[in-house]
């Protein structure tokens, strides 16, 4: 968080309404999101209690485990969940486009992809644990489960992993996405409460947002008072209907909030790079769907040495790219860099479009642009610069003095003797330059897992899901 966001929070507190910290939306919103509000039995790692889910706001599905301590009922619940989720996921696999790849075979990419929306980070964590507790199950053997359950586990695992992938929109946590776009007048910790955060954004803080009687927690944990006074007696009564109705009271308010949150986000125009990131999501989804279709094994319990390093490299690149894209897409995000002196914006007061360096054959076109800015520029001369106005362009800071900054354009002005039209900004144009650039080196290769070196424990044992995975009791 930066001083800019802090100021927005102060302003929100003072005015009693959340303040924007983004001018565009930085996540993709599906036309048909799968809203998923799961609840967990208190005291258990991953014992499901209920979930409200669906892609139609008027027709939520409520799935309940009427006796949460009963293992068979839990798996029956998982099968029901699979019955809703898997057809939804599979509905995106049919329509694909063929994508050519440099130095690789063309591949099929889904035209659209599923999007799972959970209330908060707790919802993501619970999704991950549900995935972990179901993907190794087997439909045969001593503890058989319905066939769809292990498949559900793999998809839940996939969705939870994508939630940790920077810039991915396949899985969204509502509080996180809202928090990326609005600053409330409360702490980040309190923003974890969906009811409270939505209230801040829509009509201002409400005391009752923290009252579990008015706004039940958005899960996966339930309110202890509800557990003691409503749920426990309902379960003891043996009436599935009472349990279901009790849990409906806890889920329905959150269900409405979830769609309200999506509406709020939909009110913002998508950022310029959102589609590009969604394209990567679609590619990732297609790869996962293919792996499932080909009968690949479930995701291992934990990453091996090589897989961990590969995933880290992917995530670091995605994180860096996401940060750059957000700043380039959104002047309010870029303002954070302007505030710290890593970017500056202003009006072009002078240009030398045909400036060149060197003579004869080594003569290089290096147009100069002078910008008048109010921003504090803390970049040393020679810093490589990029600009959101012309994303293919590269520049270099020549000097910064008394609010006047001279920039030399080094890339993206054409190959001619003079700069291509439009590549050099005109006098009077407002421009922004930043040291934040999207030039990332590819990362070098990794050994094959079978060639894991001795420093990292040597080649791992081949992972074969064994009976132990399948038989792990679900207490």
């Amino acid at each position: 968080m930066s001083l800019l966001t802090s100021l927005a929070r102060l302003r929100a507190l003072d005015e009693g309404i959340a303040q924007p910290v983004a001018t565009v939306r930085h996540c993709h919103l599906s036309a048909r999101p799968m809203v998923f509000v799961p609840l967990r039995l208190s005291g258990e790692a991953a014992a499901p209690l209920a979930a409200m889910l669906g892609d139609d706001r008027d027709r939520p599905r409520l799935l309940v485990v009427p006796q949460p301590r009963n293992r068979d009922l839990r798996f029956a619940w998982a099968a029901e969940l699979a019955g809703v989720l898997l057809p939804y996921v599979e509905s995106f696999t049919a329509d694909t486009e063929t994508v050519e790849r440099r130095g690789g075979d063309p591949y099929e990419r889904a035209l659209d992809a599923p999007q799972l929306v959970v209330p908060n980070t707790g919802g993501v964590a619970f999704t991950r644990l549900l995935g972990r507790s179901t993907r190794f199950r087997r439909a045969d053997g001593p503890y058989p489960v319905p066939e769809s359950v292990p498949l559900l586990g793999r998809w839940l695992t996939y969705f939870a992993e994508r939630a940790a992938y920077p810039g991915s929109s396949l899985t969204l946590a509502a509080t996180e996405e809202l928090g990326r776009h609005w600053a409330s007048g409360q702490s980040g910790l309190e923003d974890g409460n969906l009811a409270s955060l939505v209230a801040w954004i829509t009509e201002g803080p409400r005391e009752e947002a923290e009252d579990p009687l008015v706004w039940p927690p958005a899960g996966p944990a339930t309110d202890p008072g509800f557990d003691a006074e409503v749920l426990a007696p309902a379960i003891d009564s043996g009436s599935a209907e009472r349990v279901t109705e009790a849990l409906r009271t806890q889920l329905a308010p959150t269900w409405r909030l979830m769609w309200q949150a999506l509406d709020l986000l939909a009110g913002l125009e998508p950022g310029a790079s959102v589609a590009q990131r969604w394209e990567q999501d679609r590619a990732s989804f297609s790869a996962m769907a293919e792996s499932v279709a080909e009968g690949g094994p479930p995701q291992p319990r934990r990453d091996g040495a090589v897989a961990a390093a590969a995933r880290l490299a992917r995530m670091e690149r995605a994180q860096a790219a996401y940060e750059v894209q957000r700043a380039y897409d959104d002047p309010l995000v870029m303002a954070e860099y302007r505030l710290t002196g890593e970017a500056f914006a202003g009006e072009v007061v002078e240009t030398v479009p045909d400036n060149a360096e060197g003579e004869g054959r080594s003569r290089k076109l290096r147009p100069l642009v002078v910008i008048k800015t109010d921003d504090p520029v803390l970049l040393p001369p020679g810093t490589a610069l990029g600009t959101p106005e012309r994303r293919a362009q590269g520049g270099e800071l020549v000097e910064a003095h008394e609010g006047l900054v001279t920039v030399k354009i080094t890339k993206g002005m054409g190959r001619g003797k003079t700069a291509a039209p439009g590549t050099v900004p005109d006098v009077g144009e407002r421009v922004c330059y930043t040291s934040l650039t999207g030039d990332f080196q590819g990362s070098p290769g990794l050994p094959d897992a079978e060639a894991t070196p001795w420093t990292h424990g040597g080649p791992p044992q081949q992972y074969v899901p064994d009976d132990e995975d399948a038989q792990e009791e679900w207490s």
Partner: protein
Amino acid sequence: MTADPGTGSPEPGPEHSPEQVIADVLADLPRHRGVVVDSPPGAGKSTLVVRAAAHLAATGEPLMIVAQTNEQVDDLVVRICDKHPHLTVGRLSAGAYAPPPRLLELAGVRVGTRVQDLGDPDIVIATADKWAWIGDRKWPWAIVDEAYQMRSDKLLRIAGLFERALFVGDPGQLDPFSIVDGDRWSGLSWDPLQSAVSVLLRHNPDLPVHRLPVSWRLPATAAPVVSRAFYPFTGFRSGTGPDERRMELVTGGLGTPHDRALEEAARSGWALLELPERHTVRTDGEAVRAVALLAERLLQRGAVAGSEQGERPVTADRIAVGAAHRDQVAAIRAAGLPPEITVDTANRLQGREYDVTIVLHPLSGRRDATAFHLESGRLCVLASRHRHACVVVARAGIAELLDAHPSAEPVQLGVPVKFPDGWEANQAVLEHLSRHRVRADRG
């Protein structure tokens, strides 16, 4: 020290001479697949690397050396050629790298972007990043320098290139980090965010770990402080005696707090210039000015440093200013220091050495400390770059901040606890500095 003697950390054991340690290391090399040498600040790590390189090259088997930055690589090349002019060295680099003139002057050195371009030198040396692009060849020997600052995923990329390796580094400095959350790998023996040495030793717990026992950089005034605060279980001593390092200020002082702080530092090796207590923004202007003024006065008063290397003036290039954050560095640079003075963050000062350092205390002016500010490696780097004196600038109130610091660190199962604890290390250093305090008046 409140922590118990650690299990799993090297036992202090009988004191060895540095020469003995080096001999032991060289003797161990053929006996083990890997050998680790812990080197506290200025303990002759580079000397060891150069010695080991020559020793291995003498066997006639090719050697690869891995360092972390281009600067470190160039330094090593120069040192190796200087000590062992008969050796041929290939300096492997990325395309964008322009070798500094000092390298081009060396006869035995060839620079290239591909191994094939280097001829067949005794030693090939490059950064870990560059090595990661090299394949299809295996060296019988490798030396990995600054191995504690190297992330284990980098080691994973290059470990296939060598049969055996010597790992050298300083365990007390900053740990490697990532911009993404690495919790999903915590507890794994191959956690990619752990240092190369941690992962190496978790998989190969029987490898010998040696320790260089003597800091040649830190003076007798600093070694015990740094050793106690940052190396509580292993310890080291200074190579020079109490009177072997002297610093004198040629011109007299004006009695200002800054001058008095410099005098205290010249006399005792340490000074804490304490500004009035106030919570400030990170780029505390008063503190920035104090740092700049200290540097300016140090130059004006013409400090002369006397040591086992003789007498020499403390010129601007022998002075460094260190801070925790980049914006602080930018603010200090903007305060008008001579460009020859190095101003940088702790991260970038790692492995460097100066006569005098001026440090903006990471906790100065803060109301709360974060894990970043308390990280022991950060303070360790800042407090162990100097051969003569270290002047710390801080607002009063750090003791209270430490006292009020809430402790709610998460615990990851299966992750060895790292010592020293940042809080304890900060406390130890602060306690020492308080004995060298000069209070600045307001304004």
